[in-house]
C-alpha cells in the first residue's frame, strides 16, 4: 500500500479531546470555575443534609434570634424573622438551578433549532426567523419580563416562562451565525451530492460543528439566568415567600441596610459567586474549544 510520506506533528496526532483537556486543565481560572460550579450544584442537591438549620427554609419564625450578626452559631447571620441566612442561601441555590435548567432546557434547543433552520434554508425562512429574533432583542428584557409576569401570577414557573421567551433569541442568533459559515464549507455540498436528506445534513453534518459554540454560550448563560431570575424576584415578580430565593432575600434584607448589612450582602454575594463560577467555566471552555462567542 502506498501512503504518502507526509508526517503528522505530535500535536496533530494527539486527539482533539486530549489537546482540549490539557488546555482546560492548564488554565487556573477555569479550574476555579469548575470548583465553584461543582460546589453550587452539590450545595443545591445536599441542602437538606448540609444546611445547619434545614427547617429555616420554610416559614419558620424565631423572634428571639432576629437580626443576629454573623457568629459561630449563625455563620452568615439571621434575617428579620430569625432564620439562618446560610441555610436559606443553600436552599436558594435549588431555586436558582431549577430556573437555569428550566430556562436553558427549553430556550437552548428552541434557539438552536430556529438558528439551524434560518441559517440552512435561507430565503423566506431566514428572513422570517431573523426578523422575529431581532424584534424580540429590541425589547428591553426586564420590561418584557415585567409585562409577562404582571399578566400572569408571579411564581417560579411564570418567571421561567418569561425568561425563556426572551432567552432563545440569543441562541438563535449565535447558531444562525455559526451555521452560515459552516454551510459555506464544501462538506455540506458534498453531503448533498451524496444524496443526504435535509434532516441528515442539519443534525448530523452541521449541528456537531455548532456544538462547541452552543456549550460555551450555555455555560455563560447559566450565570446570567441566575442573575436575571434574582432581579425578577428582587422586584417581587419571581418566587414568592416563604420559599428561599436569593433575589427575594436581597430585597427583604435591603430594608435593614446599612445596620443589618449581612441580610442583603450575604445573598448578594451568593449570586455573585454563582455568576463568577459559570463565567470562569464558560471562558475556560471557550479557550479549550477555541470558539468565538
Amino acid at each position, binding site marked *: 500500500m502506498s501512503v504518502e510520506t507526509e508526517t503528522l506533528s505530535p500535536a496533530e496526532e494527539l486527539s482533539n479531546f486530549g489537546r482540549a483537556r490539557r488546555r482546560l486543565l492548564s488554565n487556573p481560572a477555569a479550574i476555579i470555575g469548575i470548583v465553584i460550579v461543582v460546589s453550587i450544584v452539590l450545595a443545591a442537591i445536599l441542602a437538606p443534609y448540609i444546611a445547619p438549620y434545614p427547617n429555616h427554609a420554610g416559614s419558620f419564625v424565631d423572634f428571639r434570634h432576629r437580626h443576629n450578626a454573623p457568629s459561630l452559631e449563625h455563620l452568615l447571620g439571621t434575617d428579620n424573622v430569625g432564620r439562618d441566612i446560610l441555610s436559606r442561601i443553600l436552599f436558594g441555590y435549588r431555586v436558582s438551578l431549577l430556573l437555569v435548567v428550566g430556562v436553558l432546557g427549553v430556550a437552548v434547543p428552541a434557539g438552536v433549532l430556529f438558528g439551524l433552520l434560518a441559517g440552512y434554508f435561507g430565503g423566506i425562512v431566514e428572513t422570517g426567523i431573523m426578523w422575529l429574533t431581532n424584534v424580540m432583542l429590541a425589547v428591553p428584557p426586564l420590561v418584557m419580563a415585567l409585562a409577562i409576569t404582571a399578566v400572569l401570577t408571579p411564581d417560579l414557573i411564570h418567571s421561567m416562562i418569561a425568561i425563556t421567551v426572551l432567552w432563545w433569541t440569543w441562541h438563535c442568533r449565535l447558531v444562525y451565525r455559526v451555521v452560515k459559515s459552516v454551510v459555506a*464549507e464544501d462538506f455540506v455540498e458534498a453531503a448533498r*451530492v451524496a444524496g443526504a436528506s435535509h434532516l441528515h445534513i442539519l443534525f448530523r*453534518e452541521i449541528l456537531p460543528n455548532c456544538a462547541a459554540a452552543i456549550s460555551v454560550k450555555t455555560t455563560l448563560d447559566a450565570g446570567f439566568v441566575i442573575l436575571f431570575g434574582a432581579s425578577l424576584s428582587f422586584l417581587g415578580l419571581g418566587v414568592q415567600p416563604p420559599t428561599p430565593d436569593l433575589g427575594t432575600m436581597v430585597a427583604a434584607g435591603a430594608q435593614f441596610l446599612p445596620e443589618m448589612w449581612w441580610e442583603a450582602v450575604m445573598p448578594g454575594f451568593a449570586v455573585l459567586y454563582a455568576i463568577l463560577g459559570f463565567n470562569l467555566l464558560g471562558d475556560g471552555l471557550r479557550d479549550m474549544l477555541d470558539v468565538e462567542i
Partner: protein
Amino acid sequence: MAAPHPLLEIESLNIGFASYGQTTQVLHDVHLKVEAGQRAAVIGESGSGKSVTMKAVIGTLPHPAARVLGGSIRFDGQELLSLSRRERERLKGTDISIVHQDPLTSFNPVFTIGEHLDDVLKFADRRLGTSSDARSRRTRIEATLRQAQLKEPERVLRSYPFQLSGGMRQRVLIAMALMHRPKLLIADEPGTALDVTTQDEILRLLNQLVSEEQLTLLMVTHNLAVVRQTSDYVYVMQSGRIVEHGPVREIFTAPRMPYTQRLLEAIPPLYGPKVQHRQAHSETVVITANDVVKRFEAPRRFLEPAKAPVLAVRNASLSICKGDVFGIAGESGSGKSTIARMIVGLMPLSGGTIEIDGRSIADWRKDPAFRRRIQIVYQNPASSLNPRRTVAETLAVPLAFAGAVPKDKRAERIRELLALVELPANFASRYPHQLSGGQKQRVAIARALAVDPEIVVLDEPTSSLDVSVQKTVIDLLLGLRDRLGLTYLFISHDLSLMRNFCNRIAVMFRGEICEQGPTDTVFDDPQHPYTRALIASIPVLTDAEEQAKPQVTLEERRAVLASTIQ
C-alpha cells in the same frame, strides 16, 4: 567592489518549537550563504522549514514558542542572533526587506495604501534616526510605486486594499519592501496566490528590479519552475535540513539527492519528450452541454436599486466522450467551477441544456439515480470532509442515501473503498485532522466512488497538495479510471498538469469557452490570443520548454489580460 564576506551567512542553525513542555526541533544544522548581488532560492515542500528559516533571518519567529538552539546568522558580517531587539528592529525594512505571499492579508483593510506606505517610510526613517516631512516621503513613495510598474500612483495611494486587484496589491507589497533600498530582499512565494498570468508579470518585475537596483534576492518557494526563472543558486530543504545546494543549472540537470530528483520528476512537463499523451478511449458521448448560460442575480438590498446580474458562464458548449479526461482550464473567476457545478446538478441553468447519456438533467438532477451517475471531488479536502465525522461515517453517507446500501453491507463496502484508494483499512476510524492532505483527498475520492458513478468531476483535486503528493494522487486517479471505466471532468488552473492528464481540453476566459480541442492540438498550436498568453505564462523547468512555448508580444498580452503593466 568585492565584499570580504557574504551578505547573508547562516551556519548550523538549529531551531525548535516548544509546545506543551516538549520541544520539537524544526531546523537541523541549516547552512546557507548568499553573496551580495546573488539571486538565491530556498525550495521545499510545506513543512520543510523554509519559512522558519526566513523568519529567523528577519527576526519574526513566534515568541516564546520558537527557540534558537544554536548556530549563527551573520548579515553583512554582523551577528544577528546576539543583537538586541532594538538593533534588530533597525535592520527591518532598511537592510532586509520581505515581500509576503498573501497580498490581501498583508494589509490592514481600514487604511489606504498611501497610509500603509507612509507609515513604513516614517518609522523606517525614525529607526535610522532621521526625520522626514510628509511631502518628501510622498515623492519617494510615488517614485517607488512607479518603479514597481504601477500605473496612476496617485489613485493607488488613495485606494483601500480591497479596491486593488491581487496583482496590484502584490506590486504595492514589492514597492513597500523596496522603499528603503534594502540590501537583501526576501521574497516569500510571491505571486503564488495569484493567477499564473499575473504571477508571471510579478516574477518579471522582481527580476527586472533585482538587476536594475543590484539587489540581493532570496526567494522562498515550493515551485521549482519559479526558481529557474528567478534564481542562480538554489538550496533544497527537506524536513528542516538543507539536503542539496548548488547553481540552479547544475541542480536542475544533474540532481544528486533522491529527494531533489523526486521533486523534479513530480513536475509535469509542458513540452518535450517526457509529456504523457493521452488518447481518447471511445466516441460515445456521455455529457453534452449546449449554449449553457449562468446568470447570478445580485441580491436585492433594502432601499437600494437593483444591480445588474453577473454573467458567470456565457453560451458554453462542450461534449465529453466515455473514458475521456476532459479538462476545463481557466483562471479564477473564469466560470470553470460554475460549469462543473451545473453539470453535477448542484445549480440550475439560466439558459441552454446539459444532457447526460442523452437525458436532460434539468428534471433529473434531484433523483438518487442521477447521484449514482455523477459525483464530484472538491479542491480542498480540509473543507470537503466534515471535521466531526470519522472516515467511516463520511463514507457511509453516500452509501446510505444515494447508494441505498443496507446497513450491514456498508462496513464491507467501506473496506473495499479504502483499499481502492490505497489507504489501510484501519483509517476508517480516523478523524480528518489525523490524516495528511494527500490522505484526506484519497478519502474524498473514495466518497465520490462509493456509489459506483460513471462520471467524476474533479474540481482542482490536487491544487492544495504538494507536488510530490499531487503526483501520487494523479497516478491513483488514472489507475482508477482504467480499472473502473470512469469518465473525468477535470477543472484546473494548472496547465502543465492538464497537459499530461487530459486528452481533451477547453480553455475558459471570462465566462466563455474560448478554445477547445485535443490537448496536443491546443498546446502545440494555440489559436486564441488568451490561450497563447496563458500557456506563455506557465513557469517551466527547461530552456527547451521555454522555447517551445508560444511567443507572445507585450501588445498581445495587453489585449487579453487585465494587466497592471504601465
